[in-house]
């Protein structure tokens, strides 16, 4: 249990480091250095934190810590290998969903508490996006829960022993990929943090250590969404069709996780961002009908198959 916890923590720190390194590689290919990330972090920690006079100070200081706590704690329910997980919760799916909500709400409050117009615009954009995409995420979780018959994430992984959910649920997986980009506030769905329109949006008033926390929490969100993609669709620690059985467990999990993280970085490098109303349009017009329809189809198929 304690070993699991320590390992998970170290893993999170190391992956965030890697993601931040890859980010800086895109932004400035020549200056990027693997040890630049901790250096930047330490520098930010010792910088003066500027608090706007009109901000509500307690919330303004406390919320970045809350944001990062809510993201990282989701990782507690992700199993590393068989029967090896930090928290073996029977309601693991509901736990992730509620923590994702809390992550979004605390981000909304960060924007609200800094009482700047840029941050306020970012807050409204984030609130609008979150409202739709969490619902889509809920429909995706429901379909998966129907198939596996359990709310426990360990059981969901076990149910994918023969066939990963990726193959029967391919359209749902594509919806999940879009949903994942928006929930982690990444390009093309990062209009709440858009730097050219609202100068950083929710982050715009933050500086010093709390800015560092917010940045880390965004990278942690990438890691969490990749972990969820792995667990829900790519079979967690399970090998593909029983191939390389000896590597089942951590190596397979790592391969899948890093494929998902590469997807995030690849998308950021290649695509421009959507306008705010276009993100909303995709959510309301296409994703909610598609995901709810798929949920009903799954239920129907299961009903017919089980007689």
């Amino acid at each position, binding site marked *: 249990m304690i070993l699991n916890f320590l390992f998970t923590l170290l893993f999170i720190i190391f992956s965030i480091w890697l993601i931040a390194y890859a980010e800086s590689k895109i932004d400035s290919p020549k200056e990027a250095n693997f040890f630049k990330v901790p250096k930047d972090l330490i520098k930010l920690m010792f910088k003066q934190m500027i608090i706007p006079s009109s901000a509500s100070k307690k919330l303004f200081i406390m919320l970045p810590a809350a944001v990062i706590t809510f993201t990282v704690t989701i990782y507690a329910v992700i199993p590393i290998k068989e029967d090896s997980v930090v928290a073996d919760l029977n309601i693991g799916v509901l736990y992730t969903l509620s923590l994702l909500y809390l992550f979004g709400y605390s981000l909304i409050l960060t924007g609200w508490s800094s009482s700047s117009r840029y941050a306020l615009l970012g807050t409204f954009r984030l609130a609008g996006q979150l409202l739709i995409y969490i619902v889509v995420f809920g429909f995706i979780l429901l379909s998966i829960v129907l198939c596996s018959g359990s709310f426990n994430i360990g059981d969901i992984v076990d149910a994918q022993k023969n066939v990963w959910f990726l193959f029967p649920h391919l359209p749902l997986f594509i919806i999940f990929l879009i949903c994942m980009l928006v929930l982690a506030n990444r*390009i093309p769905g990062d209009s709440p943090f858009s730097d050219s*329109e609202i100068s950083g949006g929710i982050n715009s008033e933050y500086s010093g250590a709390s800015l560092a926390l917010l940045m880390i929490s965004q990278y942690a969100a990438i890691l969490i969404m990749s972990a969820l993609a792995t667990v829900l669709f790519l079979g967690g620690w399970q090998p593909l069709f029983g191939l390389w059985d000896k590597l089942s467990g951590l190596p397979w999990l790592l391969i899948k996780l890093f494929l998902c993280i590469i997807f995030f970085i690849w998308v950021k490098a290649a695509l421009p*961002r959507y306008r705010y109303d*276009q993100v909303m349009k995709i959510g309301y017009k296409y994703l909610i009908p598609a995901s709810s329809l798929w949920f009903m189809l799954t239920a129907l198929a299961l009903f017919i198959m089980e007689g």
Partner: protein
Amino acid sequence: MNNFISSPFEYENEYELNFGLQPLSVEGTVRFILSLQGEEIKKCYPCIGFEHKGIEKLAEHTSYHQIFELIKCLSSFNVLSYKYPYILLMEKLLNIKPSRRVQFLRVIFAEIERILNHMKIISAMAQDLGSDIPKIYEIKQSKKINKFLSNKKDLFQIGGIKFDISDKELEEIYNWSRKKENIFLNKISYLLSENRIFKQRTKGIGKISKEEALSWGLTGICLRASGVSWDLRSSFPYDAYSELSFEPEVLEEGDIYSRYLLRTKEISQSFDLITQAIENIPKEDFCPISLKELSICPVPGELYISTESPAGELGISIISDGQTTPYRFHIRSPSFSHLQALNYFGKGNSLGNLVPLISSFNLNIGEVDR
């Protein structure tokens, strides 16, 4: 700096937002005071004056050669193309006819600079929209081009050019332009031109009709993207442009996407022009100009000459009273008319549309605050 919004708010829940320095494609310092209702722009006031240099007044007390140094301050990026109208104007005032080789060389280097400028605007526009990769290819590509332009900031002189360009160097430029080897153009063709998100962000947005473009005094890309075939290089050809065969590129839609597309088309057009110019360049009639020979004291008169700079029509007007300094010196800058039109074209758009709209106008604040 008195252009703060003085009128009271006209709409319900209207508020002000300071919008400045975020768009990367704007060269120089400017800020906009936006009046927003939700995310819809109701007013968009540009606040200029952060870079005011007083060039036009200073020029009345400086000799004609020193004005060169003042014109350099107009833009940190396009040095050669901003000197171009002034050189042509002085040559006409003094009745000098530069040799044909000089005329061709000027065209070649002005076109190289145009390629650089268009690439910069496109990549900055992509960066404003959140895509960073075109910038990296632009840096890679412009390193190659800057090799041709290095040590040539003072190349253009009244009556000629400062030093001859060797055949070896011309051959290098020829090989580069004939192959049209431009990683940047190849990459953005699928990173931006065919990109679904980029199209959705730019197609049908910021539309400018023919009449609007003409009445707001837009020039250059913004005018040609709205369907007006007006390119000073072909309609009033100066220097060697009359000996090159080309048609101005024109698009009809007049939205942001067509302005972007026109820039990519003009890059390949400039490649053609450079290739043609090097093919037709006469070998031996270069005489270097020594500045001491020219004690400039033009006859009294008034003259206006404009050229097609990368941003649009850049004109210089001089009233001379026969002395060593001009009586009146005036610059017609393309960005000035583009900036004042932003309030009209920005109205009714959402905040997200304003950024690509500003990027597509190719604003250069150095010439607005002159």
